[in-house]
């Protein structure tokens, strides 16, 4: 059994009286100590999926099984103990820290809420965490605005890890950072993963970063997972036409290696009623793609793809 099992999850949004599903029947799992990458373009629902797994957005239907407990419909009071195991790192290091609290307060409150009553014990945990993220003790009494973007992201990570979770959802955790800082944070995440035995659900639009950090990758398009594969297979022999298009759009830092022709069209907010959601942009779409929605088929070896033609 995996650490996290998501089954047929749907998340509904209502815009101007119309309901649509930003996440529409998604199933996947994350094993213990595994890093699962989730890529897709903006508006594909990857961030909503992350927040739904975190129960920050209510799911419309489906199951979210964490460590054997279905948490999809748990009331908040019963959800609270589960939150120790499940944490999140946010994208914007400026918006994700309360500007009116010191770093110390931000790290201490989760411990208080989760019943670490002994102040000395809390002090010990916070100081140990500060050391892990490379913060001197003295700086913990300062406010977030006194730190740079990269330092803030370290604080955000520390806050997520202070309860020693098993699974951390990283929602575009390095996307807002400069290149040199991005490398620092990625290294930190890898170090912490090894040290604390963490599993990650790593959500990002940046394929290179996902490729670097993930053991397995899910590709999402318009609320559905179109391909799921281990990182080596996905990059070497992508099956789904969307994955291929995505991969060939990433500019390489080798000027001699010109990227393939860009696919046309843009992700649209209008979801087609029937058939494959990618077909309007798909270079190989056939007549049946407009009629039948492809299922996510598991291939020998455990990878999966949702395409009639793959």
């Amino acid at each position, binding site marked *: 059994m995996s650490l996290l099992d998501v089954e047929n999850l749907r998340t509904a949004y209502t815009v101007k009286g119309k309901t649509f599903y930003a996440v529409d029947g998604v199933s996947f799992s994350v094993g213990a100590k595994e890093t699962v990458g989730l890529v897709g*373009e903006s508006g594909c629902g990857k961030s909503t999926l992350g927040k739904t797994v975190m129960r920050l957005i209510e799911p419309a239907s489906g199951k979210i099984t964490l460590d054997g407990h279905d948490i999809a419909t748990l009331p908040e009071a019963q959800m609270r103990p589960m939150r120790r195991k499940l944490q999140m790192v946010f994208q914007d290091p400026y918006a994700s820290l309360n500007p009116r609290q010191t770093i110390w307060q931000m790290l201490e409150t989760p411990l208080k809420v989760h019943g670490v009553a002994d102040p000395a014990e809390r002090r010990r945990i916070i100081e140990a965490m500060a050391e892990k993220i490379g913060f001197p003790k003295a700086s913990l009494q300062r406010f977030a605005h006194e730190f740079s973007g990269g330092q803030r992201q370290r604080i955000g990570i520390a806050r997520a890890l202070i309860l020693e979770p098993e699974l951390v959802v990283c929602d575009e955790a390095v996307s807002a950072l400069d290149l*040199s800082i991005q*490398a620092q944070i990625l290294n930190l995440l890898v170090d912490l993963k090894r040290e604390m035995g963490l599993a990650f659900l790593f959500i990002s639009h940046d394929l290179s970063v996902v490729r670097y950090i993930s053991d397995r990758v899910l590709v999402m398009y318009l609320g559905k997972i179109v391909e799921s594969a281990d990182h080596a297979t996905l990059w070497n022999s992508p099956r789904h036409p969307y994955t291929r298009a995505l991969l060939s759009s990433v500019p390489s830092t080798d*000027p001699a290696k010109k990227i393939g022709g860009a696919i046309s069209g843009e992700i649209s907010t209008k979801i087609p009623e029937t058939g494959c959601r990618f077909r309007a942009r798909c270079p190989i779409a056939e007549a049946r793609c407009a009629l039948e929605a492809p299922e996510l088929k598991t291939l020998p070896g455990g990878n999966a793809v949702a395409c009639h033609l793959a």
Partner: protein
Amino acid sequence: MIPKPPVLELLKLEVGFPGAPIVKGIDLKIEEGEKVALVGESGCGKSLTAFSILRLLPQAARITGGQVIFDGHDLATLPAHELRRIRGKGIALILQEPMTSLNPVLPIGLQVAENILQHEKLSRRAAKERVIELLDLVGIPNPRERYTMYPHNFSGGMRQRVMIAMAIACNPRLLIADEPTTALDVTIQAQVMDLLEDLCSKLSMAMLLITHDLGAVAQWTDRVAVMYAGRIVETAPIAPFFAGPQHPYSQGLMNSSVDDGWHYSSHRLTEITGNVHSALGERGCAFAPRCPLAAPGCRETPPPLELAGPDWHVACYRRAEAMAPSPVAASH
């Protein structure tokens, strides 16, 4: 053969806010039809440099020294009404955020037409036809119907195409694109950059691309200028640059970017320690506090840009050591 003069030449350009110099003396040449990338991390002054060319700086910022030579004029000191004749006509600008760079209450056709009507003696009707051609040229379907639509009817990529149509409306000789694809998805980025590249060659237009994305630089430009803390530290044609940058900062950037095929299980990224703020109060090379090769001499005076190869300039006292195989370079 007499070499053609460059389209744009920045000479010792200095820009800053009162009491806070940001751009500290930049020299940069852009040749006819050339695509030059200005690369750097946030806060290094690359956007201010771009804005200062057309004197479109934020409120408090000022050009505090140097020249911006375009077409024999110094744009830094040109009277405002003459500068207006160059804005949009000689040099055009594309901004980062296609959501906010178009006026939300005006139809997009009018916004493109404004540029044409400002610089060319054309009737409104003729201008409209021109706009429709332009919209078609940048790949907007049904341009005639779209003419009267408002920006909120368009997706991000389409808006950026409208911006491009607006920018190329008067066949400018230079296009300044400030992070034109940062707000766009990777498949849309490829579409937009391909379009820009195509237009540059069709209209023999030079481009100054402001970006932080090394991949975009390698794919869509001819030459790169790396900026750090208000100064250009290295400038080179892209092929030799990506084969082996000479400045320790450029090397650091290349090493911290996640390259093809790297995986965390086998490859640890090389970090540049510290952050850009480390340069504050530094008298010498701004990168010295983060540089693995810094020597005491680096912290006296900033190194000048020196010729390091064909059309290749580097500002580093320790260039020789940086080029030697080092433990940093050998780790991958």
